[in-house]
């Protein structure tokens, strides 16, 4: 079984706060596939720093607001 990711995010919450922005709209704004947004929201994928910034920019928020890092116990 794959180890749980140490990076979590609030993409879903920020999407809904921005007028229920769809996953496809966010994917288009960030230049990724919708399936990547789905994987990100489910914390199944840790994005690159650049993609993290692109998502934060598309959601009009800072990187720290969207992503959190938890030190592995």
């Amino acid at each position, binding site marked *: 079984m794959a180890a749980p990711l140490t990076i979590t995010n609030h993409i879903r919450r920020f999407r809904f706060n921005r007028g229920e922005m769809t996953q496809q709209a966010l994917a288009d704004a960030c230049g*990724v596939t919708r*399936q990547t947004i789905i994987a990100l929201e*489910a914390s*199944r*994928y840790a994005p690159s720093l650049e993609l993290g910034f692109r998502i934060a920019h598309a959601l009009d928020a800072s990187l720290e607001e969207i992503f959190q890092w938890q030190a592995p116990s």
Partner: protein
Amino acid sequence: MVLFSPRNQLVASLLLAGFGLVLFFGNNYRSWDMPLDWIGTVLFVASVWFFVDALHRVPHSETELAIAPQEWQAWVGLAFCSACLVAIWIYLPAFAAHVSIRENPEAGAAGRSIGMLFVAWAVLAYVLNQRWAGTVLSDERDRDIEKRASTWGRAATTAAVICIAVLLGFSPTDRLQTLSYPWIAQLLMSTLLVGVCVDNAVAALLYWRDRRQVDSP
């Protein structure tokens, strides 16, 4: 008309394509003088053509949207690689004669049939990309999966090459003399295909595993 709706046309063309492949593979077991592989190939290509037509008219379903374009490509790649490997295995006896493929009509026909499979694969891959024209086809997550799958593919190719080296190195010389050059060429082709097949299988599995875990966290 509902009967000729794009979705029904899609299903019918897929069934016909499957029947075409059955004819293509069944050619080796024919008991009458009919070029079944040729008929199968024509049927397959024609079905793919109608499939393309229907594909452009059918709206994207939820199931389809849940699967990434590169995952579709991985499943299609896996299906065609497996089909090509089976075809090479079935037609292997045709390459056993100690003459070049040009002088062996049976081997030539087998080669053309296998070649047609590659062409059909390329056509279908192109059609699938057209289906998502204007959207992002791959991103960093796809590249990450591709990288992991390639590692497995390389390992499989290496293992297959070592197997062939051991086979050729440790077999008795008089037995090796019965192997023709076209036969060894097919063996090398299948080695490459094993690598590509494993590459596609791992990619498809990684995508599927990700989707499954998202669906049931």
